[in-house]
């Protein structure tokens, strides 16, 4: 297993947001996390790259293994972890820099990379994020001048540029129009060959279209996890069925 959480619990202060979540994800698969707003999807996702550490008062208990090693073990290098586990946020967050500098941001954090190699890796990342053709002539232009969908693909490219093993996406298309959304969904299929992807979505059709496995969360608990086709056709838990048939949410 690439990722495995064991009885993972998260508190914000004294409010428990996740209850004993056991969830495993195979390498090079796409896992969708679904569930009503506030059920803990983002909280779970932010454990995987320890972005929860940036929120004051967060306590995490239980185990969370990446390639068999617990990422919450004392002494884990969080910076190194985040280079292995990239993240795309709900709202596209291009930095106020050029398109090139955005994609190169993570690459420039490490040891100096020769200019030609840097160029190559920026192009490769943009190509993988299906954005290269649209921006190749304006790499020095500001990233803030891109459309919403392009900005989100830029953020994907930026995350891919540092060659992570895992890519976390928190409702990456919730602010985008259907065409931009379709582009990103299409892109995801190709990315699964190289990366293990965890995507949070409130859109069940999207989960059904893009993922191999779907996990349904409700009130901080993992209610059911199954291969996506099974979960949407034969949910075994009543709550899951009610949710996917739109009876609440």
């Amino acid at each position: 297993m690439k990722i495995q959480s064991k009885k993972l619990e998260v508190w914000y202060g004294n409010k428990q947001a996740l209850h004993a979540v056991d969830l495993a994800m195979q390498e090079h698969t796409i896992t969708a996390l679904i569930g009503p707003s506030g059920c803990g999807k983002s909280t779970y996702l932010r454990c995987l790259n320890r972005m929860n550490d940036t929120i004051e008062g967060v306590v995490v208990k239980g185990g969370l293994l990446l390639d068999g090693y617990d990422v919450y073990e004392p002494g884990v290098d969080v910076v190194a972890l985040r280079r292995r586990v990239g993240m795309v946020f709900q709202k596209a967050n291009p930095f106020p820099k050029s398109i090139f500098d955005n994609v190169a941001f993570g690459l420039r954090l490490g040891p100096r990379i020769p200019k030609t190699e840097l160029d190559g890796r920026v192009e490769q990342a943009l190509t993988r994020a299906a954005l290269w053709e649209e921006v190749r002539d304006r790499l020095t232009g500001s990233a803030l001048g891109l459309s919403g969908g392009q900005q989100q693909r830029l953020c994907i490219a930026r995350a891919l540029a540092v060659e992570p093993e895992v890519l976390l996406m928190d409702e990456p298309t919730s602010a985008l129009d259907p065409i931009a959304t379709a582009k990103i969904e299409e892109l995801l299929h190709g990315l699964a060959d190289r990366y293990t992807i965890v995507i949070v979505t409130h859109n069940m059709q999207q989960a059904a279209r893009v993922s191999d496995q779907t996990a349904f969360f409700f009130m901080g608990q993992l209610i059911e996890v199954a291969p996506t086709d099974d979960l949407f056709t034969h949910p075994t838990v009543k709550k899951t069925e009610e949710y996917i048939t739109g009876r609440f949410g």
Partner: protein
Amino acid sequence: MNRNERTGFGLLAICAGFLVLLVVALVGYVVSGGWSVLSFGFLTEVPRNGMREGGIWPPIFGTIVLMLITAVSATPLGVGCAIYLVEYAREGWLVRLIRLSIRNLSGVPSVVYGLFGVGLFVNGLGFGPSLLASGLTLGLLTLPWTITASEEALRRVPRSYRDGALALGATPWEAISKNVIPAALPGMLTGIILGLARAAGETAPILFTGVTFSRPDIPHSVFDTYMALPYHLYILSTQHQDIVTVRPVAFATATVLLGIVLVINGTAAVVRSRLRAAQVG
């Protein structure tokens, strides 16, 4: 818009118009008073004949160097303090104490800074009455301003710039130095420069710390005494034995001081729009 609203907006427009009028009147008054003696030579020559003739180059030079020392001393300290407060400090008694200090510092009358400057820089550190002692005193005076402006600029940077960098494997300092500070820079610079513009016109803090009534040349080092525009203006308007004759010189000096302040403010505006444009593209 109904009639009441129109009257309301009309009144507001009058308020705004009055402000513009005030600026025009002030500048016009000062410039017209000094017009007769203003010339290029006035900017480049030293005072002659008991300040009745010649120019005001030494006080211009003094004020400019003073501003440089002020900027160089206050900016790193102020920006550093702001970064600590916004990015690292956790709310607690220490932060509350720092904030309380800043708020109180900004309320301290400038003449008190002058006295403190004598104690700390002139005597305590042994700089003597000098450009350095005055510059550092003005640096302290602008510090609360610098900190507050930098803090506000840092707080306006969206959290997503910081989180985005962290998620790419940046250390907290890398996230701040490569993403947050560049985004906050236009705002920080604007605040710092406006603080400098205020300091440029201060008399009290330099009064005891090194400014001198008159010297025939410009200072040779930062440990020398110097002339400065606000003090020169003060001397010309109140201490000169022939106040009526030198009145135009006083007005011309005020014009130059105003000009320097306007240039500083203008620079702030240009810097801000340049940096913004570079970011937004």
